[in-house]
């Protein structure tokens, strides 16, 4: 089936990217690349619920932080390899996504969105008050320096996030053309008509919420090991909220390619901005521009870059 072929092709591209990165000879490529790939997973995950199904999630930081903090909590109890921690993070976030969906998805879409805003704040409050994982002061670990076979730990983290990205994109793509994807699209276009046509809307929405949340949790799980330090401020930053929405909306929400375009564009520009230090002393300008670009695109190019490309193609064939 084409899905398997795509996975193989994606893994091949991934391997190419990895070895290209190694050939640069500078560790920073892996450190910066990790951040971009993290956003790719978040954007793709967001798009499954937002772009495909039409339900806007403002609480990406909540699901991301759940993954990060479940790692923090587990690490205090037992030593687990990172992939296992990622799975655990995914499970925790997925369950919370399911629970929240169950509470709010039977109402209008806007109430779900407002509830996601609420979730981030509630979670942050709980975590700030939970001393077991450091509370507001945060928690530290000692990060391993090297890993057998690969060498640097940064490369290992990069590789894991690369594999997760490939997984996320493959899942998103396989949903698009499937029965599930058609169901999502029907819900997005007209939920009442979808119900009347036999689509079990609540069940599908719960699937979308759980899957989206789980992927975000998996993206967040290695965060403690990435920076060796984790506190509520860094886990719940606004960056994640705005980027996970801006990247799919700017790239185009109807397909898995959209979040990819949006991430590479926005993520690349942001990384370049922080390296070139043109906004020295004003780190918020970086993220302010993302907000401005988001608003501009939402108003002027609602279907994102993909939409612009498609309409240009249609005009040229007419």
């Amino acid at each position, binding site marked *: 089936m084409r899905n398997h072929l795509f996975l193989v092709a994606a893994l091949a591209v991934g391997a190419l990217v990895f070895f290209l990165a190694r050939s640069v000879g500078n560790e920073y490529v892996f450190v910066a690349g990790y951040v971009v790939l993290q956003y790719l997973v978040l954007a793709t995950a967001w798009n499954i619920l937002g772009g495909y199904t039409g339900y806007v999630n403002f609480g990406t930081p909540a699901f991301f932080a759940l993954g990060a903090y479940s790692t923090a909590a587990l690490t205090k109890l037992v030593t687990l390899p990172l992939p296992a921690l990622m799975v655990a993070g995914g499970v925790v976030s997925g369950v919370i996504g399911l629970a929240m969906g169950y509470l709010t998805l039977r109402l209008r879409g806007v109430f779900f969105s407002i509830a996601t805003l609420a979730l981030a704040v509630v979670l942050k409050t709980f975590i700030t008050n939970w001393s077991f994982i450091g509370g507001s002061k945060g928690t530290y670990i000692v990060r391993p320096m090297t890993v057998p076979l690969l060498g640097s730990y940064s490369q290992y983290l990069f590789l894991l996030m690369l594999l997760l990205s490939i997984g996320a994109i493959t899942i998103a793509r396989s949903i698009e053309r499937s029965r599930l994807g058609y169901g999502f*699209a029907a819900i*997005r276009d007209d939920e*009442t008509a979808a119900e*009347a*046509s*036999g689509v079990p809307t609540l069940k599908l929405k719960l699937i979308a919420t759980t899957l989206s949340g789980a992927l975000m949790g998996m993206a967040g799980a290695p965060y403690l090991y990435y920076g060796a330090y984790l506190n509520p401020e860094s886990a719940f930053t606004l960056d994640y909220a705005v980027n996970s929405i801006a990247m799919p909306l700017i790239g185009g929400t109807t397909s898995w390619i959209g979040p990819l375009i949006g991430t590479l564009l926005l993520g690349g520009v942001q990384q370049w901005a922080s390296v070139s230090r043109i906004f020295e002393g004003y780190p918020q300008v970086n993220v302010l521009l993302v907000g401005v670009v988001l608003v501009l695109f939402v108003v002027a190019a609602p279907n994102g870059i993909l939409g612009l490309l498609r309409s240009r193609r249609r005009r040229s064939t007419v």
Partner: protein
Amino acid sequence: MSPPLLAVAEVGKRFGGFVALDAISLEVGAGERVGLIGPNGSGKSTLVNCLCGTLRHESGSVRFDGAVMDGLPAHERTRLGMARSFQLPRPFRSLSVAENLRIPLLYTVNARGGRHLPPTEIDERSRELLGLVGLTEKAGHLPRDLSQVEMRKLELARAMAAEPKLLIADEAMAGLSHSEVDDILALLRRLNERGITIILIEHIMRAVMSFSERLVVLVAGRKIADGLPEQVIRNPEVERAYLGE
């Protein structure tokens, strides 16, 4: 006497202080052709919404094919065999005309009894339905490229795609030309011959009169008449409702 396919018992619905439906009782036998008429605002669409599960009624109960429908979500009722077309067409805007038909095929037909239709059969059935309503050339188009009339045909085709036992056509013929109305009537009659029970909600009197075996009249949320079409239209209350005092 076989039990009725649809048994509506004392169904009531309020919106705040406004009584939209007042203890409506109605029975439809399998294979019947029932017409439902009434002035604007009499509650016809509200009744349809309550029957199909889009709205929750506060009192009374609905039984379909022997099973109680109350509390079941709309998609369950569709799977059990109740399908409806919407008065104002509600197509899936980002999907093509053919893809619009895939949704009920994938989610209603496929959900019944075990076997999933293979993709080739789905495509074939979708093409067949488009041919029946005359939308074959528009199969790849988006709904926004359709005329009002074509959208109504798509609406009907989508309801038919669910392979219902009972089809409720809510003003499917509004705005159609004389011959187009005849086409739709012929189509509905063919469906009825295959055994599908049909409730036709319409304002076009000649269509309702020629099609219905039985006529039900709703005025201000109450059922005021239920019987043979020729007798019902001679009912003084019905005359009053349509022509005034």
